[in-house]
């Protein structure tokens, strides 16, 4: 193994980390308000298929990417409405949303399987001659976004209010915050970022569309949220780790090493499980205390 190999591995890891980082950072914000969204996978697929289709049609990847993210946002409004306004179960709603996204994206993307779309332009990090470390703008933005999300969460008034809602909506309400409004806003961000992650995956990384192409990244993102202990900066580490595992597996397959490709395909996911196993032992008060709970408002508390 030489240095070149290592550099190309790092380079690839960063590329594959970006589309994971978007949904992960979004979900960190969402879970910090107390909402678990198992529909991320569906949202990513919707973002990926619509943006891919639009890019083929319109020829402008940027417009396509943002419309794809917008579709993610719109789709997540279903989740937001059911969970926040109708007090529906977060888990059931999320799973339903996942299947909804899976189906609709397959339908929308069907005509575009195997087609070429206008991809996002790349900007080399190490000067024009190097083939490595050439990324589209959204890769750079992903890392910037994670840092900004950290500042937002831990250094701004709104971040503080958001965390308060996730810890105890009734107490946040007593402090003059509207938990419903905060959760609705957070759900919009989750939808937009998940859609953006999917769009970036389709137009920046794979540059093709195929059914179910996110391959569980929406669920990996949820695992990474736990791994990151609800901290966007640690999410960067998690995303690179998983991205690195994917790339390693691709590299090994390309070298034709005598391991079953099925095992290699499994590797990133096994790694994720393994990391959760080691890391899952939570420190007190890291997970938002109201995570997954329905908030009925003040009056019905007695029931």
């Amino acid at each position, binding site marked *: 193994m030489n240095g070149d190999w290592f550099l190309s591995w790092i380079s690839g890891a960063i590329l594959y980390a970006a589309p994971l980082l978007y949904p992960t950072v979004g979900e960190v914000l969402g879970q910090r308000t107390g909402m678990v969204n198992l529909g991320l996978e569906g949202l990513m697929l919707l973002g990926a298929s619509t943006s891919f289709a639009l890019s083929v049609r319109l020829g402008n990847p940027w417009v396509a990417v943002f419309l794809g993210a917008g579709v993610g946002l719109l789709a997540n409004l279903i989740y937001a409405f059911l969970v926040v306004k109708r007090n529906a179960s977060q888990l059931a709603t999320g799973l339903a949303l996942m299947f909804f996204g899976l189906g609709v994206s397959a339908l929308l993307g069907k005509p575009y399987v195997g087609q070429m779309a206008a991809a996002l332009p790349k900007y080399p990090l190490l000067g024009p001659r190097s083939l490595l470390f050439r990324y589209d703008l959204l890769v750079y933005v992903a890392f910037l976004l994670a840092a900004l999300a950290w500042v937002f969460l831990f250094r701004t008034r709104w971040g503080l209010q958001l965390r308060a809602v996730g810890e105890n909506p009734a*107490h946040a309400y007593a402090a003059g915050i509207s938990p419903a409004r905060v959760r609705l806003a957070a759900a919009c961000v989750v939808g937009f970022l998940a859609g953006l992650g999917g769009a970036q995956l389709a137009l920046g990384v794979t540059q093709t569309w195929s059914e179910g192409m996110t391959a569980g990244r929406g669920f990996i993102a949820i695992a990474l949220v736990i791994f990151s202990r609800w901290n966007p900066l640690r999410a960067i580490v998690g995303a690179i780790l998983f991205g690195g595992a994917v790339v390693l597996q691709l590299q090994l397959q390309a070298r034709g090493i005598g391991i079953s490709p099925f095992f290699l395909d499994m590797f990133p996911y096994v790694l994720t499980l393994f990391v959760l196993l080691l890391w899952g032992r939570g420190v007190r008060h890291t997970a938002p205390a109201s995570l997954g709970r329905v908030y009925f408002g003040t009056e019905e508390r007695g029931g």
Partner: protein
Amino acid sequence: MDKSPVLRAEGITKRFPGVVANNRVNFDVHAGEIHALLGENGAGKSTLVKILYGFYQPDSGTISLDGRPTPIRSPREARGHGIGLVFQGFTLIPALTVAENVALFLSKLDWYISPKKLAAQIQEASRRYGLELEPKTPVWQLSVGQQQRVELLKLLLTRARVLIFDEPSKVLAPHEVDTLFGIFRDLRNDGYSLVFITHKLREALTCADRITVLRQGQVAGSLNAQDASEEKLVELMFGEPLKEVATRERGSKFGKPILELVDICTRAVGTTPALRQVSLTVHEGEIVGVAGVSGNGQRELGDVILGLIKPTTGKKIFLSQEATAWPPARMIGQGVAFVPEDPLAMAVVPWFSVLENVALLSPKRFSLYGGLGMAWDKARAVARAGFERLGLNPLPERARAASLSGGNLQRLVLVRELSRDYKLVVGLYPTRGLDVRSANAVRQAFLQARAAGKGVLLISEDLSELFALSDRIVVMLRGQIVGEVRPDQTSLTEVGRMMVGVGHG
């Protein structure tokens, strides 16, 4: 006073499933007035102030501010109108730091929060009001008394003009209560209006200008403090005078030791104090009092006894068996009744009903067909008998624990713990939040336990309570036992001094 009141509530009615918590209540506060709100547990005091703060909406009735009818639809609106409330069960968020909890309440907070600046600001403010606090500590590490200080600070910094406090003195040490009332008087003289709820009649009589008493959701009377007396207030609260309180018979015939702690040390977590070389013995038929300002290791002491935390060194012996490593289940099973500092967080499942919570700790006792069913009738009978023995009105069995009033919740925990077959009862501030009559009933129950040869460890900040009940009082300061006295050989002031670390006995 001929000025119109700052805040006036008229004909407020609020129903909850099965109770009318407020029944056509009239209440008002003037500028530059301290108004005390009294009433027995469950009388509807907290409900009333939550309505004034917009946390609950009244079923009927109006609220006027400066003479103008103003509906208050949410706490946010209340704060906009300059009304602030410190809740009875706190509204602090354990995972956030002291500074962050306070910041949540600051109306004029910059959008960017600099932790350093915020900490300095809060440190400065806490010093100004004589409330010692460490801004960067996460709130879950604080004792209940410290949490109360954070709540106070929160409200003082919002600069509301009507400040409402739901039982502010409940968890404060005597000297802190003095500080608090000093702050109240200063604010009143600056023209603020203050409302506070209390169960201590003396506090209402000494600090308030006006006193309103609620009974079963209705105003039983409202009078100026000069015209009030303890007897009058008791009469208004309960409709009858208090019964004589039995006192402890002197003379000690202790039996064998029940609990022995030998040189217990624990690890400090964050800023919570570690226990250092704590040795303590409770005998059969003995009440041992632990005096101290809360946050000096009392909670840790309780946790060690119950087995929630393991000591780093030292030994715990329970009923002559080495019990240092016993988990809570075993301690409870072997006969420890435990009344924790914060019942809602540690003693009950909030969304379980009263009955389910009663049955919670003795599933075996109430199980049918080898655990396949529950003998609810039996649990019901035990609960009823428990309330009766304490001379308290039974609570509605189906009410969820979270919906109980603060005092009723404390009653529930006490009744459950004292109905079990126990050998040692550890009570952390057991009469906190209870009205005068229930507090007396509980003290009575402790004396009965003593007479029946059980051991009692009574952790309290209320020195007169400790003096009335204890055979022996140890004083805790910064995780250590700094003195041991007999109530008949010392004075309240002496022990008070030891509690804050001045002088030594």
